[in-house]
């Protein structure tokens, strides 16, 4: 176990941004390896600037290093320039903490926040000197593990990983450490790899793909079943019951070079029950668990003091829904003892006037731009996707924003949604134009930027059965919006080329046969697929053709209720029939309430796991109509009925 530093050092002055590879962050630990300790290498399969701020990785890094029987270091994907030099000189993947070779670790654990990083995982495993295919690994090789949102359908990665962990990692990493510690103590003898994988499969939330067989009936899956006795038929995700028990990271990592979210992050709650049907994060992280407001405050003050940051981001899937939001903001913003009156940023804001009031409170003198996400252009389509924002909500929010001094608003939309027609697509520009008109009443400089993304259906959501729009269809719809925008004053359009959505769709809902496609793309040089300069659609299409697989079958085809989906044996806690009913309700343009404040509709998560929502306030937060059309601007009563429409033909 020696450091690779002396071999890396001469290379670093020759590569771009060498600070990516040196560690040295505030909050980094000095790893104490030792006999009997399980060594984890926590890997983020994208560049350092993107990976360093990842909260999940920081939390696990700290919890593991607090354990007497574990040590954890970090690694990120080396950029192509350093990778070239490393391969030329036979330098393996290394940790940034002590520059130790990846093969010196017992577990190589990847955090997957998107499907487009799958090829980077293969590349990093290969750089580590570990066989890319799990079946070729020996007991001396580390266990290759994945977790994070994109691990909820791990089937396309089944050939390459030993273990997938579903759900939250705080508790399960300790249980995994104990099993691996025993394996180490037993000497990791020949043939012991299967035994340790079987032992890991006994831990709730741990899925070992090689212990399951998949049988096909033509293109379709006939059956997915355990190959060994005692292996669970269905793996349930892990959920931490009370976020207040886990006030991590206590020692946040503050990097010594610029990263994407260069500020303190404090997670105010986990889970979201708004029920947006396109949103995998909202579906798989249920139920809602708020952090106590007092703990949020102390994490902010302590984190700012430790890191020296003067900006804090209050993170969650919808931060204005945090019941302690006003008290936290009003106690932090004007308080010079809380590290000099920090700037507060509120990502993922709800669309209503109340939220704009919060934003105004934290914005100080800066009024650069405010971002809202109506996601769809018409109320009809918003009921389909259950993003229950009325036009009045949006215009109220925009009115409030321009009246408070903002002159720019950014609106996020998805295109390629179920039942979407050109009227809905055109509605995007109508909404934007309406916002400009509202803005013009306050400032002549009012302008609105529309940002459109192509929708990719994800596993464990009501839209998992929906056939994704083809790339040409997405391009056509984006073209409609762009054309309409040229005739509309004050509206600009930004979009991503939708070609990467094909690869994302393939990896999101693919089965094990897609593994061969991923491997081909990687071997052909297809790394950093989230970076448009490295993405080539043909690479994916050629790989599909070479494997004799149909893009239509995997991407653009609608699935039916009877179909066994590739993640059939994996559960995010949501009942399959709840998801199916919600899909039908969607096609009938029927909205569903937020169950935090309405009776339970039994999605399965709370009842199945013995959990409850942990919400400090029994009534919905002030502001907006919550889709009810009621005025809830001062904190409203429980919404009862939602607008609905009689059923209209499905897509």
């Amino acid at each position, binding site marked *: 176990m020696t450091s690779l530093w002396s071999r890396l050092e001469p290379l*670093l002055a020759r590569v771009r941004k*060498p600070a990516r590879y*040196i560690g040295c962050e505030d909050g980094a630990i000095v790893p104490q390896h030792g006999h009997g300790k399980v060594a984890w290498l926590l890997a983020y399969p994208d560049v350092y600037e993107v990976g360093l701020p990842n909260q999940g990785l920081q939390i696990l890094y700290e919890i593991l290093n607090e354990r007497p029987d574990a040590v954890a270091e970090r690694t990120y994907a080396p950029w192509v320039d350093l990778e070239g030099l490393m391969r030329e000189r036979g330098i393996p993947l290394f940790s940034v903490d002590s520059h130790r070779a990846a093969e010196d670790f017992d577990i190589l654990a990847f955090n997957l926040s998107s499907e487009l990083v799958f090829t980077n995982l293969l590349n990093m495993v290969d750089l580590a000197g570990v066989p890319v295919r799990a079946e070729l690994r020996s007991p001396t090789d580390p266990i290759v593990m994945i977790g994070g949102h994109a691990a909820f359908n791990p089937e396309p990665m089944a050939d390459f990983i030993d273990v997938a962990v579903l759900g939250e990692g705080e508790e399960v990493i300790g249980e995994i450490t104990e099993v691996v510690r025993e394996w180490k103590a037993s000497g990791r003898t020949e043939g012991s790899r299967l035994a340790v994988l079987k032992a890991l499969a006994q831990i709730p939330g741990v899925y070992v793909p090689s212990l399951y067989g998949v049988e096909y009936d033509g293109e379709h899956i006939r059956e997915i079943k355990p190959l060994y006795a005692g292996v669970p038929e269905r793996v349930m995700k892990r959920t931490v019951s009370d976020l207040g028990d886990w006030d991590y990271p206590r020692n946040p990592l*503050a990097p010594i070079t*610029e990263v994407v979210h260069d500020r303190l992050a404090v997670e105010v709650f986990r889970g979201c029950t708004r029920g947006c049907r396109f949103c995998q994060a909202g579906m798989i992280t249920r139920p809602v668990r708020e952090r106590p407001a007092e703990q949020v405050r102390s994490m902010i003050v302590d984190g700012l003091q430790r890191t020296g940051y003067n900006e804090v981001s209050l993170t969650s899937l919808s931060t204005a829904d945090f019941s302690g939001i006003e008290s936290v903001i009003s106690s932090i913003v004007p308080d010079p003892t809380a590290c000099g009156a920090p700037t507060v940023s509120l990502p993922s804001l709800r669309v209503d006037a109340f939220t704009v009031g919060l934003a105004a409170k934290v914005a100080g003198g800066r009024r650069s731009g405010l971002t809202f996400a109506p996601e769809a252009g018409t109320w009809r389509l918003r009921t389909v996707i259950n993003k229950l924002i009325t036009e009045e909500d949006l215009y109220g929010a925009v009115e409030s924003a321009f009246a408070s001094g903002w002159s720019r608003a950014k609106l996020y939309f998805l295109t390629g949604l179920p039942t979407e027609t050109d009227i809905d697509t055109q509605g995007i520009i109508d909404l934007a134009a309406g916002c400009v008109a509202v803005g013009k009443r306050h400032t002549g400089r009012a302008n609105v930027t529309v940002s459109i993304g192509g929708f990719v259906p994800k596993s464990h959501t009501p839209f998992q059965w929906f056939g994704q729009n083809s790339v040409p269809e997405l391009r056509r719809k984006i073209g409609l919006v762009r054309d309409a925008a040229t005739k509309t004053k004050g509206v600009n359009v930004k979009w991503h080329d939708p070609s990467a959505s094909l690869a994302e769709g393939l990896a999101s809902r693919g089965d094990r046969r897609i593994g061969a496609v991923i491997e081909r793309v990687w071997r052909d040089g297809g790394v950093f697929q989230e970076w448009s300069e490295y993405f080539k659609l043909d690479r994916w299409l050629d790989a599909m053709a070479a494997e004799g697989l149909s893009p239509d079958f995997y991407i653009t085809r609608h699935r039916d209720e009877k179909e066994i989906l590739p993640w059939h044996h994996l559960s995010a806690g949501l009942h399959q029939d709840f998801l199916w009913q919600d899909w039908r309700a969607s096609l009938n343009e029927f909205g569903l309430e937020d169950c935090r404040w309405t009776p339970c509709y039994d999605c399965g998560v709370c009842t199945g796991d013995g959990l409850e929502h942990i919400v400090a306030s029994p009534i919905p937060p002030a502001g907006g109509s919550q889709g009810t059309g009621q005025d809830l601007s001062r904190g409203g009563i429980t919404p009862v009925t939602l607008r609905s429409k009689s059923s209209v033909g499905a897509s």
Partner: protein
Amino acid sequence: MKIRVSYSKLGKIRFTGHRDVAHMWERTMRKAGIAVAMSVGFTPRPKMAFGLALPTGAESLIELIDITLDPASGVTADQLDSIADRLSTSLPVGMSVTGIRECAGTEVSLQEGVVATTWVMLVAEPDGGPDIASAIERVNNSAEVLLSRERKGEKHLDNIRPGILELRSADAELMSSLPADWIGESVGHAIVAVLTTSGRGIRPTELVEVLVPESDPPINPWDHLNRVLRINQWIERDGERVDVLTGRAAHTSVSA
């Protein structure tokens, strides 16, 4: 009160850039709990003025920063020593404060005042062609040393000889005074160079380009420059080069 702080940047942290160091200092001042005066205007910035940028990958015994403290910080001149300790504790590993003094408002800024810096460089001997010792002799005996440099996207042939104020092999005494991980570094020929910073200035990598034989494609100077360390920064006073922090004249101390 305005203070002038000198600090070292050694080891792994040398791979951070000038902008990174600026952000580190902002965080360091807040961690140390020392309030910095802010500029007025739409986006107030802390009043910190940095010395000459240190190239990414180069180390230094003497980097400089001028910081204007907020009157509310309550810092007085006799507290400066304890402030140095607080800052060193708050800086990242590899950086620590080596000197601190009050700085009169009338003093010339670091960017304008510093006219030259002294470097120790470990340069790998080239495979073919003259060795570094003879290359040094050639440069010292020439009135003109030409280097192709890019300006506004166009190549220009510059005579950099006037900017090479001193150039020689480093002696054992100097080498033994360097930081621990430099002592015993045997990779390359150790040279000392005093290079101008006025005008375009001369970078250590540019000096390497004229010390090693030309090749096609052009060499990457970092293939030859194993380590590089800034050991002095000089200002001009009464026609003489004097140390920016201590005011000592150049001829009394070239080494750190």
